[in-house]
């Protein structure tokens, strides 16, 4: 089932049934976004609910000429970022550079080709990444933001954003290698 213009109108009019229907339709795609940014499942649900309420509140501002889903995902990302910014520890982490393990991934490690990762496994790995690299990775890889935009969004310098992204990518690779190493060991 798709999100139709009628459904959007009904949601704008405050029809509870339509809003419920909209929630069900947007749940999975929104969860994909929220889960990546959150540190656990419960946080992801909180982010999702906050974002959905924001969508309903702002639905009258939606431009019908644009795809609704894209608009809704953008609102979701902004809402999640707002929620993250409210967290004091997250803001402190933005300044810290010590969270990344100073490791270099093993280029010779080839277990990746022999094992198919599940989406749940990937998501869990993403969740475990330290901030702010995780957020920057999400924004850059999945949302397609440039370093300039990320820097503006998070209030950091572009260089800082690049550095974090490089570090977090390395870390993710190492985590994957560890994951595969453990798999092979089993």
């Amino acid at each position: 089932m798709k999100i139709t213009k009628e459904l959007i109108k009904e949601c704008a009019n405050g029809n509870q049934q339509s809003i419920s229907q909209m929630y069900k339709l947007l749940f999975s795609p929104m969860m994909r976004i929220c889960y990546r940014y959150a540190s656990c499942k419960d946080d992801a649900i909180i982010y999702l609910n906050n974002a959905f309420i924001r969508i309903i509140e702002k639905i009258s501002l939606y431009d019908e000429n644009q795809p609704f889903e894209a608009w809704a995902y953008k609102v979701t990302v902004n809402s999640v970022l707002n929620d993250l910014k409210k967290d004091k520890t997250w803001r402190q982490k933005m300044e810290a550079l010590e969270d990344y393990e100073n490791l270099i991934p093993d280029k010779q490690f080839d277990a990746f080709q022999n094992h198919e990762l599940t989406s749940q496994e990937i998501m869990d790995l993403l969740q475990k990444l330290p901030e702010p690299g995780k957020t920057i990775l999400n924004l850059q890889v999945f949302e397609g933001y440039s370093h300039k935009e990320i820097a503006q969004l998070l209030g950091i310098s572009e260089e800082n954003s690049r550095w974090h992204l490089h570090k977090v990518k390395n870390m993710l690779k190492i985590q994957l290698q560890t994951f595969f190493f453990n798999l092979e060991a089993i």
Partner: protein
Amino acid sequence: MNNFMNDQEWEKYLKSKVEEFEFPYNDQYWQEVQKRLPQKKQKSFRFEWSIGILALLVLTFGSLWFIFNTNDNTDELIQKHFYHKPILPKNIIEKNSDFSSKKQNENIFSPKIQLENKNTNYKQFSNNFLKSKSSLEKSLIARKKSAELLVNKEKIAAICKTILIYKALKINAQKYIPLENAQEFVFQLEALNTKKLLSQNNNELNLLNIEKTQKEHPYIEKKIKWGLGSGFISSRFTGDKNLFFRQFISAHLEYPISTKIFIQSLPQISFGNTLNIGSQNSKIFALHLPFEIAYHQYRYSLAAGLQYDYFFLNTEQKQSLNTSRILSSFAFESQYHQFKLRLAGQYSLNNLSKWSNVQKEWRFLVGLYYIFLSK
């Protein structure tokens, strides 16, 4: 694992895996959201609108209350103070204790006047009125109507010097100076002369007594406050000390009228010769001028009533008074207030553009506030 470090493929792989991710839906999540959702929107009923509508309702009902619940005893007061008050000195009335019965058999009108008044309605009314034993206790409205019929007769008006001056000015003076200024000037002079004339002989009909009574009117204090408030607002917001505003303040200061009289004068406001309140854009005019008009309507009716009462006197009584002087005074009074009625209309038209340039809505609301304050 040669391609393991290829960033593009690596990102593609991640994206595809994330896209596959499905999180099981649970109705519990929706219930949590449902509690926090905003209430159903009322498209056209916003907070600002509700406040505006509420204020409008308060103003409307307040105004209605002000109009209908104020001075309910006006008729009673008028009759007590003016119409039941003998217009002649007591000694003259006492000599004619059978005053009303005599009037039934006498021809109270001079033959000349009777000939001129060929209006059937007037005659019918007069005859019926005179035949009744309680004719002097007829209602205020009946007296006013009959008085108006009398005053409007050209021949009666013609005997008054002031009317002649007025007519002359209307024809000649307007070529050189603004008509209303000339008329105002002449009437001010005439008013001084009349007051002086009447004060010389207090045994005769004395219009100054009426003014004194008006000053003692229970509502005059409130009206003065109202006038001061309105005047203050005018000078505060316009800074324009032109004739209109002086007129505005002074007119309000002497208001002894009630809103009930104002309602009674509404037909004249709407259909008068020169007045058309409905055509005014400025609400403050619509607020002020009806009061001004009502006041002059009231004074006009009073003078006309006195004029009418004069005709109940017998010949002897009439001879004992200076007929022409008294008639002149009555006619002057009635004509003067008719003039003021027209003047109010003229002012409204002349100053319309000035008022429309200022924050009239705001002034209107503040004006209302002061009116309520004066209560």
